[in-house]
């Protein structure tokens, strides 16, 4: 059953249409990641959900009740801000206790709850310090503690790992799901990092230019993105793509691109004709051995990226492709000799040449 429901939500500032008719359903207890590049309207959407901003049109429903007009304090929603938004004149303890105090909870209970969450997030030793005395990681944990302490039914997390350094980000990426599981709340999480989104999410919504491109399981979005835009956003290095004319026979697809015929081992239902072919760098085989469907390429350069090696190679028709492989595999590649590429079976994607939608 859907717990939160967005029905054609729109919001604009003057002529700037930031959010344009969003629809989504979020389930109870789900870890829902809203992913998008900067400027796509993620933060505005989160502010609409929290009640800081009001939508121009559309409805936000929670448990089937419209909450459009409710003030932030009237919604059973808590939020951790990207910039932490800690109260500078209160100690970490009071910061975390703030949501409890709003609810007339006894002092003893406040104390035990604050200590419990501080313990869980490993900040119990800094409770007596002011925000300006905390490290960035501690600030981030304090702000997280504040958003969770009252066990809200919905937690909004606005890219909470953005402003902390890589080590803390890595730790938190492992720790956060565990902590949140314990609280059994619905989490709406904003991220600009597709890897973070894939690591954390039950489902991901891809927000682009104020619209949801995809709402699906992480695996599905990665493997079957609805459009080239989404495919480009997911993946580092970005997906290779090129225009080609498709013709099919039996188990093969032949993509003709600038005079070069690329043979793709793939069954597909798409029509013959022009389209955009997308293939992720890790789905390209690069080797010194020639096979039946492989193509000659010229080596251009290589660079390490995220523990893998990325090669840039050029086809004889001028098309450049990125291929990535593990360091182990890369050791076997002899750059000085002739190189060949072939596309892994069933891996490439076809997009409409004009609308950029996935054709399958």
């Amino acid at each position, binding site marked *: 059953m859907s717990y939160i429901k967005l029905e054609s939500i729109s919001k604009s500032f003057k002529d700037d249409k930031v959010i344009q008719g969003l629809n989504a359903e979020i389930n109870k207890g789900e870890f829902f990641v809203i992913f998008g590049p900067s400027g796509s309207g993620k933060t505005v959407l989160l502010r609409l959900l*929290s*009640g*800081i901003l009001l939508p121009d049109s559309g409805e936000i429903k929670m448990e089937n009740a419209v909450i459009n007009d409710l*003030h*932030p*304090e009237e*919604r059973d*929603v*808590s*939020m951790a*801000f990207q*910039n932490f*938004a*800690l*109260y*500078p*004149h209160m100690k970490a303890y009071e910061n975390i206790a*703030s*949501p409890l*105090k*709003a*609810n007339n909870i006894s002092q003893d209970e406040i104390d035990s709850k604050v200590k419990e969450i501080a313990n869980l997030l490993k900040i119990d030793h800094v409770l007596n310090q002011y925000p300006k005395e905390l490290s960035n990681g501690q600030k981030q944990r304090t702000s997280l503690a*504040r958003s969770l302490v*009252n066990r809200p039914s919905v937690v909004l997390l606005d890219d909470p790992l953005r402003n902390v350094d890589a080590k803390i980000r890595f730790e938190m990426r492992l720790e956060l799901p565990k902590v949140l599981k314990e609280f059994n709340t619905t989490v709406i999480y904003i991220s600009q990092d597709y890897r973070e989104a894939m690591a954390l999410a039950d489902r991901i919504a891809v927000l682009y230019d104020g619209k949801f491109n995809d709402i699906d399981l992480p695996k599905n979005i990665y493997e079957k993105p609805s459009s080239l835009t989404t495919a480009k956003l997911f993946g580092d290095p970005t997906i290779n793509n090129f225009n080609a004319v498709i013709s099919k026979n039996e188990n093969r697809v032949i993509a003709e691109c600038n005079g070069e015929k690329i043979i793709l081992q793939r069954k597909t239902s798409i029509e013959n004709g022009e389209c955009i072919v997308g293939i992720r760098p890790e789905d390209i085989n690069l080797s010194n051995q020639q096979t039946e469907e492989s193509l000659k390429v010229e080596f251009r350069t290589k660079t390490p990226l995220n523990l893998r090696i990325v090669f840039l190679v050029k086809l004889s028709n001028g098309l450049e492709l990125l291929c990535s492989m593990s360091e182990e595999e890369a050791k076997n590649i002899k750059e000085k000799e002739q190189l060949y590429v072939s596309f892994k079976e069933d891996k490439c994607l076809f997009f409409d040449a004009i609308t950029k939608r996935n054709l399958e």
Partner: protein
Amino acid sequence: MKFNIWSILKIFAYAAIILFFLFPIAWILNMSFMTNDEILRKVPVLFYEPTLKNYIGIWEGEISIPGFATMYIYFKQNLINSAILSSFSVALTLVLGVPAAYAFARYKFKGGEDIAFTLLSFRFAPALLIIIPLNLYFTQIGLYDSYIALIWVYQLITLPLLLWIVRGYFEDISPDIEYAYRLDGHSWFQSFWKISIPLAKPGIAAASLLCFIYAWNNFVFALILGSSAIQPVTVGALAFITASAIPYGLIACGIVVSVLPTLILALFIQKYLVQGLSLGAIKG
């Protein structure tokens, strides 16, 4: 050689500035400890026995001069009036101005800037243009010669001052901090009271003190809208100096007592003065 001339000129300039701007204050302070005889000497005395008689006279309101009858002066009442008028004006300004300053800082609303500038423009309207009709109105509705009327009119000076300083301080607070507090489950008023105001406190405090100084220093409103019973020191001192036979030491003492509060407050807020004096047009 050129260097020396510049240095000498510089020393001369410093001396001239100190003499012109600070000597009168020092001298009036000096006079307040003198007896009338010592003041009236043709050649000023530099060494004398300082006396507190003038201060005691001001406080007790009764002064006996040899050869004259005992005189009664009411300057103490002026001091009390000044304190009442200034304090209550600042209090009212805080109540009216802080929420308005918050609104101007936080919300972009239709006509907001117009309202803000209207409030600012009061500071530059000729005072008498407004007070003369007001004087007639107040007489009709029985508000003439009342603290309430004066405190109301004082808002013309204090309100713009506070608005434009405090607005800047509210603008410096991240709205997210307030939103975070509201998402914790607190109402707007609670977040205003527990977050916005404490964080803007240095600005509010400085603005209040500057408002106090300006209210205390006002002259024309009280001159026209009140009788001697409610008049502050600025008007009282003038009456004091024009009255005959009051010893000069006592006059000097009255002036010292009148300017001392504002001078002391000024030293507390000197860091914030630029912003206050330019109504926020220049950030110090």
